[in-house]
């Protein structure tokens, strides 16, 4: 770890590097097999890190990689549908494509990208030095990576999953889906699920226990609030999908018949379990985007968030009511009239808190001095797109009209407006807004605007026409359409399919420009200057420290007096004139904080065990599919890693560092060791 406080106790007996027998046998050496990885630079400092910021960045990089993969899959789908009787993909490959597109986008892009923001920002926003369980945090990240890679190896091992992202049974049983794809899917998601569950526990404890002094719940930044709601949804939704996935695994790999109608089973069991998880999941997807815009809109409107309390409570309400509506995904499955009526009404109810949010955002902008930075553009884009998606959503809360729309492109249009418009645009707003915080440089605004407009135009061209295509009756998940049934005039399917396909490539160029922008900003010859400390005149605690923040985040944990603490330190209301005037700059505030820096800062040390433990899981999963012996091998590694973990202290002993720090020096001195 880069900055380690030099031990101030009488210098411990040093263990000389390389000499076989260390002078002090410390637990970490005796039982850790290997010495603690304590390097502060190079790949080791990333692979074994437990720093929430590094983990956040790694989450982001890997999620971005999967976003590109999912995007390529989407483009292949659109290529196939660009003309009649497309021949780009075979029927089987087409099925794999849309299944893996959706799975990748949902589980390997949006959720982990949200985790990236949450991991990076939550400790900073609440004035903490790390999350509550840094090693578990690292474990979560590696589970996500291991699960994601495992899932995608299925492409090379006989074919990926092809049952659609909700993998209805018995359609996805071995009879109809004979490759191992679905097995990979079930096991891979099980592994990434561990990441979500441990992440949820970790962040909830962090938020509830580690807020800076003075930060009561109602003084917490809105981003943190929304993320807290998301973590509760994850906490309670993940176990349900776990059950479903286990049943699926037993069915496919161990001969059980949970969903086999011939054996007397009820296939609705799968649908229920999946959607009990699935509906909370859609809020898990979309709330992080909401969280980000709720932070971005006020900053660029130069006004506090309108109705903070309402936004908090409506967030919590969504989190709660979201549990009672799952069966609206099953209106067409023969649930019975009473169930349909109940779930239909519940679904209309949930539109209310969502509407509250949109109203609040609009009123936040109302009368504000709006600055259209790229981040703000994305945020406004989200509000507009999500409103469209929300409206089409209400049309299928009404069960009879849903029966018309279900399984057509109308549904595809709806959920892309909500997911792409509600979640992905929010994530991009977050990239532009927090980029200087994490990397010390502002992304180029001009490229950013191109990025935004191309994505916005592309998105509307891709998904807008799908409303028409869908109402015309083109089914989703269908690899072909024919000229013969394309219809005439304005509603000609062929025309709109082509528009959608062209749109998807414009969208892709937009996303590509984002990558270009990163390269442009950070290339070696880049003349982009270091970003100012407070480039946006922001309101929350993460801006009270350096950019990028030090390893321990804050020299002194700030004391909080108000919601939007940072804003209140910069500005004061003149009681006589009622004017708001600036009383301090970010630099002054930071200097004041640093002057009172804490003397002893102990950060948890890096560790090997999280990554070892995480990568033992795919070994077991391969075992389930190919050879039961591997399960045992993987299980043994898991056991070993857990013991190693349990016996390892969270802070490395001094003797793990070489050369051991000489005692003395002032307490405040921070040294880079190792």
């Amino acid at each position, binding site marked *: 770890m880069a900055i380690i406080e030099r031990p101030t106790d009488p210098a411990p007996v040093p263990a000389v590097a390389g000499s076989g027998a260390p002078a002090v046998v410390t637990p970490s050496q005796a039982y850790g097999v290997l010495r603690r990885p304590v390097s502060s630079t190079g790949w080791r400092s990333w692979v074994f890190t437990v720093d929430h910021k590094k983990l956040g960045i790694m989450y982001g990089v890997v999620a971005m990689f999967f976003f590109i993969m999912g995007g390529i899959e989407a483009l292949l789908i659109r290529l196939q549908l660009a003309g009649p009787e497309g021949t780009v993909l075979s029927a089987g490959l087409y099925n794999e494509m849309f299944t893996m597109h959706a799975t990748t986008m949902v589980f390997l892009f949006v959720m982990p990208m949200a985790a990236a923001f949450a991991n990076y920002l939550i400790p900073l926003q609440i004035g903490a030095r790390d999350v509550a369980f840094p090693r578990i945090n690292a474990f979560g990240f590696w589970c996500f990576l291991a699960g994601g890679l495992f899932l995608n190896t299925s492409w090379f091992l006989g074919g990926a999953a092809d049952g659609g992202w909700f993998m209805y049974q018995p359609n996805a049983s071995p009879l109809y889906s004979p490759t191992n794809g679905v097995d990979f899917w079930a096991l891979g998601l099980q592994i990434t699920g561990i990441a979500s569950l441990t992440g949820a526990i970790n962040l909830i*404890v962090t938020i509830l226990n580690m807020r800076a002094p003075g930060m009561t719940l109602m003084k917490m930044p809105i981003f943190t609030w929304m993320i807290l709601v998301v973590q509760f949804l994850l906490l309670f939704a993940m176990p349900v999908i776990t059950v479903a996935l286990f049943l699926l695994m037993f069915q496919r790999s161990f001969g059980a018949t949970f969903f086999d109608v011939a054996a007397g089973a009820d296939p609705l069991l799968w649908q229920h379990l999946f959607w009990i998880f699935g509906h909370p999941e859609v809020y898990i997807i979309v709330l992080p985007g909401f969280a980000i815009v709720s932070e971005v809109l006020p900053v660029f409107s130069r006004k506090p968030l309108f109705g903070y309390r309402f936004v908090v409570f409506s967030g919590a309400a969504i989190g709660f009511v979201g549990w009672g509506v799952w069966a609206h995904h099953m209106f067409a499955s023969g649930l019975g009239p009473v169930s349909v009526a109940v779930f239909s009404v519940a679904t209309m109810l949930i539109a209310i808190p969502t509407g509250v949010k949109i109203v609040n955002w609009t009123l936040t902008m109302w009368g504000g001095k709006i600055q259209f930075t790229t981040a703000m553009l994305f945020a406004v884009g989200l509000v507009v797109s999500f409103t469209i998606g929300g409206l089409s959503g209400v049309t299928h809360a009404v069960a009879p009209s849903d029966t018309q729309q279900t399984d057509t492109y109308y549904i595809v249009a709806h959920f892309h407006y909500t997911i792409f418009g509600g979640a992905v645009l929010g994530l991009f707003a977050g990239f532009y807004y927090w980029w200087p915080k994490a990397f010390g440089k502002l992304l180029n605004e001009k490229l950013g605007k191109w990025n935004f407009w191309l994505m916005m135009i592309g998105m509307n061209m891709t998904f807008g026409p799908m409303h028409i295509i869908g109402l015309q009756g083109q089914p989703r998940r269908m690899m072909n359409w024919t000229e013969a049934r394309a219809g005439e005039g304005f509603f000609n399917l062929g025309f709109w399919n082509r528009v959608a396909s062209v749109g998807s490539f414009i969208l892709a160029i937009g996303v590509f420009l984002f990558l270009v922008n990163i390269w442009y900003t950070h290339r070696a010859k880049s003349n982009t200057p270091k970003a100012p400390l407070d480039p946006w005149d922001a309101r929350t605690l993460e801006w009270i420290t350096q950019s990028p923040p030090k390893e321990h985040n804050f020299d002194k944990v700030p004391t909080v007096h108000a919601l939007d603490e940072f804003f209140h330190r910069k500005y004061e209301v003149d009681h006589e004139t009622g004017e708001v005037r600036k009383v301090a700059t970010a630099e002054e505030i930071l200097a004041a904080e640093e002057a009172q820096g804490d003397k002893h800062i102990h950060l948890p040390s890096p560790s090997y065990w999280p990554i070892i433990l995480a990568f033992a899981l795919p070994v077991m999963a391969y075992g389930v599919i190919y050879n039961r012996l591997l399960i045992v091998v993987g299980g043994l590694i898991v056991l070993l890693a857990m013991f190693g973990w349990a016996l390892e202290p969270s802070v490395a002993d001094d003797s793990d560092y070489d050369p051991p720090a000489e005692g003395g020096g002032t307490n405040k001195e921070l040294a880079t060791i190792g």
Partner: protein
Amino acid sequence: MAMWLFLGSECLLFGGLISTYMLYRGRHSAELGPDQIFDIPFTSVSSFVLLMSSLTMVLAVSAAAQKDDRRTNLWLTITALLGATFVGGQVYEFTVMYREGLGFTTSLFSSSFYTLTGFHGVHVTVGIIMLMALVGINKRSRVPGDKAEVVEMVGLYWHFVDVVWIIIFTLVYLIPA
């Protein structure tokens, strides 16, 4: 707190498994249904054993709070042994059922029954491993009672597993299908 959150989450896991069982408990052949196959007196004894292990766990936790490592280890070991007895009983129960012809794939009832109770058994086993690891850690630690927090945490887990069994015992075994 983390443990409580985890247990809250586990409620939904076991809830799902129990519901699946409830849905399928009546789907079996005439001879191999719950009412024919369960041995209530036997299971009630093993339920009792698990219940008593909760008591010994409590005693371990309070010994740890009083920084009495020796007594802590004693109670932890007894708890682990009682847990092992329970798991042993379960293995025995499974073998008997298997011999009577109830395999994992015999019927929907059998699959969901074995899945549910098997999951619970795995939880108990994990608990036993944690208890043994705790004894090991305690033995090596130089500061008496410095692992009291961890003992308490494992205790919560252990009681939870017991509580789940209380529910399974009633819903699965005692209420006639």
